[in-house]
Structures are given as structure tokens and as C-alpha cells.
């Protein structure tokens, strides 16, 4: 009975989606708004990566909200998984197997590279594919490798917490600077646009991107660590 109704629901949604696909035709050109973005972001924000330009400036409010979401998840997962009565499911009397020595060594060697790469992705937000979120995720992946391969490592929660807090506050602060010195909240024109396509360009976008990266990296790391313990 339930199986049948589930199947029915899925099939009906299939029909609805089929209707959407049936009505969909691939566009030959982008919408007027997108065209505006494609023209404006490089020219007025000085960022070659239009997606990042939109994400960090024009839809910066979304991004800020998204950072808040991650921040809350870190806190929420902390609320849920923290506390004294947590028990891990590993049965007593059976020590978890030590990770391979080779993997540990491999991790030690790869980790700097990963973090460097994370930094690269973060820094590259306005120039090429990448940005704060992606870079932050890469950084967090590094943390994850650290925890996997070298389980003895303890994350310094205090440090991470302070980092993410500071990054968040500075982010909001830059937003306010935009309000004071430029045309609106999160306006990236508080810094000069610089030469198109170079690292120091596009106003505040690289700064925000870096903050975003640091913050996202710290938050994701905290989340992962909460799950680990």
C-alpha cells in the first residue's frame, strides 16, 4: 500500500518533471539580466570571474547569509553532538586499528600542498574558477585528511572558533565599510579596482574572498571535527 503510493508519487512527479523538460528549450543566448551581469562584472567590479563577482558583490547578501548558515550548522552540530553523554559506537575491547604509517607519511607530505592549493583557490576567486567556498572546502578537506591519517591530532577549537568569528566580523565590517565609503552594503568599491586580471584588483572582492575562505574552511573543519568526536 505504502509502496504503491510512494511509487505513484514518484511517477506523478516524473510526469510533472517530464512536463517541465518537455517545455524546456535550450537557450541560444542568455537573459537580459545575465547579459548585464556579464558586461558589468568585468567592467565595473573588475573581476574576470563573473560568477564570483555576482556571488561576492551583487548577491553578497546571499553569500553572507550562506556563511551564517554554515556558522549555525557548526554551532548546531556542536549543540547536538557535544555534551557529555555522547558515546561512540566503537565497542570496547577492540582498539581501532592504527592507520597505516604510509598513509600518515603521505598525509604529512600532501597536507602542505593541499593547504597551498586551498589558498590558491581562495585567492583565485575573482580571477579564475574558485573562490572562498571552494577554497574553504579544500582547506577543510586538508583538515579532514589530517584527522583521517593522523587521528592523534587534536584540532584547536579555540583557535578555529576565534578565526571564524574574526573572519565573520571582518566580513560584516567590510560590508559596513561599503556602506560608509561606497554606494551600499557590501559594495566592493571601497578599494580601487586595480589592473584587470591581476591578483590585487577588483576592489574588495579578493579580501572578501579570502575572509570567506578562511571562515568557510574553519567552519567546515569544526563541523567535521564535531562529527569525529
Amino acid at each position, binding site marked *: 500500500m505504502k509502496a504503491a503510493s510512494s511509487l505513484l508519487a514518484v511517477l506523478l512527479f516524473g510526469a510533472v518533471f517530464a512536463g517541465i523538460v518537455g517545455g524546456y528549450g535550450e537557450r541560444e543566448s542568455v537573459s537580459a539580466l545575465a547579459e548585464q551581469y556579464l558586461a558589468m562584472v568585468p567592467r565595473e567590479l573588475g573581476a574576470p570571474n563573473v560568477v564570483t563577482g555576482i556571488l561576492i558583490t551583487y548577491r553578497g547578501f546571499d553569500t553572507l547569509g550562506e556563511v551564517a548558515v554554515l556558522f549555525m550548522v557548526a554551532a548546531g552540530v556542536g549543540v547536538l553532538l557535544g555534551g557529555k553523554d555522547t558515546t561512540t559506537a*566503537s565497542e570496547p575491547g577492540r582498539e*581501532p*586499528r592504527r*592507520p597505516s604509517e604510509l*598513509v600518515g607519511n603521505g598525509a604529512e607530505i*600532501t597536507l602542505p600542498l*593541499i593547504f597551498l*592549493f586551498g589558498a590558491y*583557490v581562495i585567492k*583565485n576567486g575573482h580571477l*579564475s*574558477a*574558485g573562490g572562498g567556498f*571552494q577554497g574553504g572546502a*579544500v582547506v577543510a*578537506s586538508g583538515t*579532514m*585528511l589530517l584527522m*583521517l*591519517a593522523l587521528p592523534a591530532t587534536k584540532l584547536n577549537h579555540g583557535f578555529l572558533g576565534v578565526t571564524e568569528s574574526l573572519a565573520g566580523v571582518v566580513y560584516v565590517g567590510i560590508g559596513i565599510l561599503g556602506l560608509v565609503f561606497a554606494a551600499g552594503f557590501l559594495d566592493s568599491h571601497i578599494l580601487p579596482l586595480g589592473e584587470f586580471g591581476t591578483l590585487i584588483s577588483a576592489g574588495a572582492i579578493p579580501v572578501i574572498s579570502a575572509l570567506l575562505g578562511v571562515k568557510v574552511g574553519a567552519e567546515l573543519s569544526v563541523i567535521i571535527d564535531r562529527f569525529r568526536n
Partner: protein
Amino acid sequence: MADMLLQIAGVLIFFAIVFGVARLVIGRTAIDRVVAIDMLTVVSIALIALYAHLSGRFVYIDVALVYGLLSFLAVLAIARFLEKGP
């Protein structure tokens, strides 16, 4: 000529992925599936690089890097958990 070779290469990669997916479906053990994933991601890196070439966009290479990094981590993590056993 070069383009044709590339096309053939593309077809070969296509089949590599098909085989990988087939192994994924056949499975046998969880480890087998993870091996398939490992191989598939490596093939995907090549695929992305190839696509970057085809579309002439350098930026896609970065994706390949992230991709390789992440797949490595994922496989490592899975292996680590698998060996702890259920």
C-alpha cells in the same frame, strides 16, 4: 588527424568509464566499488583535462586538480573506515 586521434581517445575514455561503472554495478564487495570509484575519478581527471582542451578553457584544469585531491581524500577516508570494519 590529431583531432581524429583525440576522438578515438575520447571513445576509449568513454569505455573506460563504462567499465568502471560496470564494476561499480557488479560490485561483489564494497572495496571493489571503491576501487572502481578510484579509477573512475582518475579517468574523470583525464576527461576534464581533455574537455578543457576541447573547449580551450584553461580554467577547467583547476577543477581537475580539486577533483583529484578530493577523490583521493574520499577514497582514503572510505578505506580508513572500511578497515575499521562494521
